């Protein structure tokens, strides 16, 4: 019974020595980033809880409640360890066995006392298959979800493991009342129900399809201890849950950095030449490399940025992208290519800088174990998956790792490589232009703004919930909050796009103002970091001041609520000419405000 393994992580070499010699929290994190089995996962969790009772400062806190109808306690340590891997410090509450409704309804329950941010419903497949009709299950689940959300918490729902044995066989769906057929239906309909209600799923059924049901569920353990998920599958269970939590918090990886020789094609382009490298051409190996490229291409089409780090001359590195007939990836798919003979860790830093994204947004794919080890040691925040000797298996490794987990797809996601490619080109142009003002003018920027509307809702809500750095107050709002803002005449919700001669940067900034007397209080102001240094801040203020004056308001009040991540906007209001009221509030008298025109046009959408 092979257990699901975290195969993208390197094995925990010298596990016993390392666990015995844990020094600082960095040692814990580096051990968490290895291929721990369930015993090692539980041991690490136990030691962390003993030695680090308080959350280390750079870990983001998350409060998660597990509500189910079977034994769940054995999954909790693995949830916490998966959290460590994702930079999250999980506090987990395990609800009373089969007490979902009671816990929710009783304001004095342990659940409400715990005050979770997220509730994970983890019903077992017995429970899900026993309902009389799909409609009654739908009503029951939706009622639970709505109760959770009414209490200000968000919902995760796990899908059913396709557990019970078939009675007919391949055509099981023809048997009325078949539990196997019922679970297939439940899993099918859960998707639609969850989408209607804005609930995110944890797809255990997809994991079981990949790993085999026997790896996830053992009927003997169900009989012995009512464990729906085998303890040995707990590390993967933790991963699946934490990935969704992390994706919602904007912590998924954003960019795949690819090596070239023996990663995207067989052989060495500098030695073997364009006609010598192995790619496609009907060879098994060449087809395997095509599979790697096809997967990377598909990732980029759904919003993952592609970059290249290669030990090559730049001209050689580009040649296959431009000229090889079998290449799936083309020059236009690559947002940033760094090819030279320098240290790869240094080049990866350069890529992050050129694309203006954090190192913790990167995944580095390289067939060479030396380079992988070097990057893991120099840049532990960069994810570096193991790479099998068989290129055809690389897509399974990358998808199994879940680096790019996402819960929603917006038009911005699809256009992202183009946008970041523009970023890298702009950065290259800036390196050649000394005069910043002249450079910004040369970009021919247009700020297109509009009020909150239905069409832009998914992107705006996404930005509100995942922007951490350029975010003055880090207030998170749900889709329902958004709808309320749209209806409320005292709320001024603005969104902004930025277009320049390299392309459309997409919807990149959001401001929520609240009219209070003669004041417009800036409740939220956030912006994607990919447009930093473009004087968007000044332009946004011009826009806000205009809108406030149109409503006859006299002053703007801005707030800055510090977090671990938003230090970059600490002085924003001061820089923009606001006067400090107290440590968190700043005021701008509109009568005195005479802005320097920003280097862009402002256009209403």
């Amino acid at each position, binding site marked *: 019974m092979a257990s699901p393994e975290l195969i993208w992580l390197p094995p925990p070499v010298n596990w016993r020595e390392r666990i015995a010699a844990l020094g600082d929290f960095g040692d814990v994190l580096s051990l968490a980033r290895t291929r721990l089995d*369930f015993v090692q996962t539980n041991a690490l969790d136990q030691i962390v809880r003993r030695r680090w009772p308080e959350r280390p400062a750079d870990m983001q806190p998350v409060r998660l409640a597990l509500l189910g109808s079977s034994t769940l306690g054995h999954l909790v340590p693995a949830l916490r360890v998966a959290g460590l891997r994702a930079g999250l410090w999980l506090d987990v509450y395990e609800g009373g066995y089969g007490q979902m409704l009671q816990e929710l309804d009783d304001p004095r329950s342990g659940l409400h006392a715990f005050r979770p941010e997220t509730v994970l419903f983890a019903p077992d497949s017995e429970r899900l298959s026993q309902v009389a009709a799909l409609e009654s299950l739908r009503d029951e689940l939706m009622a639970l979800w709505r109760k959770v959300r009414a209490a200000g918490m968000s919902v995760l729902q796990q899908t059913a493991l396709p557990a019970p044995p078939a009675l007919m066989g391949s055509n099981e769906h023809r048997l009325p009342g078949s539990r196997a057929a019922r679970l297939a239906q439940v899993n099918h309909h859960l998707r639609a129900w969850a989408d209607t209600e804005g609930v995110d799923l944890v797809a255990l059924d997809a994991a079981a399809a990949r790993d085999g049901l026997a790896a996830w569920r053992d009927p003997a353990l169900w009989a012995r201890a009512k464990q729906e998920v085998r303890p040995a599958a707990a590390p993967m269970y933790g991963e699946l849950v934490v990935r969704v939590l992390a994706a919602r918090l904007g912590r998924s990886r954003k960019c795949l950095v690819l090596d070239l020789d023996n990663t995207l094609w067989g052989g060495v382009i500098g030695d073997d030449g364009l006609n010598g490298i192995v790619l496609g051409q009907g060879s098994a190996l060449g087809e395997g490399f095509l599979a790697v490229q096809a997967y990377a291409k598909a990732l980029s089409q759904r919003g993952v940025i592609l970059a290249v780090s290669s030990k090559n001359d730049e001209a050689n590195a580009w040649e296959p992208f431009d000229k090889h007939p079998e290449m799936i990836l083309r020059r236009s798919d690559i947002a940033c290519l760094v090819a030279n003979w320098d240290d790869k860790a240094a080049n990866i830093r350069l890529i992050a800088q050129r694309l203006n994204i954090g190192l913790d947004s990167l995944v580095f794919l390289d067939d060479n174990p030396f380079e992988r080890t070097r990057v893991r040691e120099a840049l532990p925040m960069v994810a570096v998956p193991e790479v099998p000797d068989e290129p055809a298996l690389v897509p399974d490794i990358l998808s199994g790792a879940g680096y790019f987990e996402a819960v929603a797809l917006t038009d911005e996601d699809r256009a992202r490589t183009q946008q970041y490619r523009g970023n890298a080109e702009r950065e290259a142009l800036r390196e050649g232009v000394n005069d910043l003002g002249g450079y910004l003018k040369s970009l021919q920027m247009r700020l297109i703004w509009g009020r909150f509307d239905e069409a832009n809702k998914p992107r705006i809500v996404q930005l509100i919930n995942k922007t951490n750095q350029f975010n003055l107050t880090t207030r998170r709002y749900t889709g329902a909050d958004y709808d309320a803002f749209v209806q409320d005449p005292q709320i001024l919700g603005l969104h902004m796009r930025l277009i320049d001669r390299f392309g459309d940067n997409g919807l990149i900034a959001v401001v929520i103002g609240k009219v209070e007397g003669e004041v417009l209080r800036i409740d939220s102001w956030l912006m994607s970091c990919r447009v930093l240094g473009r004087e968007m801040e000044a332009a946004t203020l011009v826009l806000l001041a205009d809108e406030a004056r149109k409503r006859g308001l006299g002053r703007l009040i801005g707030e800055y609520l510090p977090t671990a991540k938003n230090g970059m906007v600490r002085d924003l209001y001061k820089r923009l000419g606001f006067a400090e009221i107290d440590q968190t509030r700043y005021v701008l008298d509109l009568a005195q405000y005479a802005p320097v025109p920003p280097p862009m046009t402002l256009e209403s959408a």
Partner: protein
Amino acid sequence: MTTPSARVLAELTDLLRDIFVSPDLALTRETCAADVRGWDSMKQIEINIAVEERYGIRLTSREVDAMRSVGDLIDLIERKTK
């Protein structure tokens, strides 16, 4: 020379030290659940699975229920890996 039994006992000791996060845990054939702090039914399941994965065997419900001591587990492993 190490007998097969002694080898399995040493391997089980390592395994249980990991499971109980107790680097000094000492086992004999006579050790039973009551002798080890935290060895409850849930831990027993973890031990069973760890043994199954380590030795590539499957312990049945009957075998698990009949197990009384570390010695029983060693015998079981030796019988099933023959």
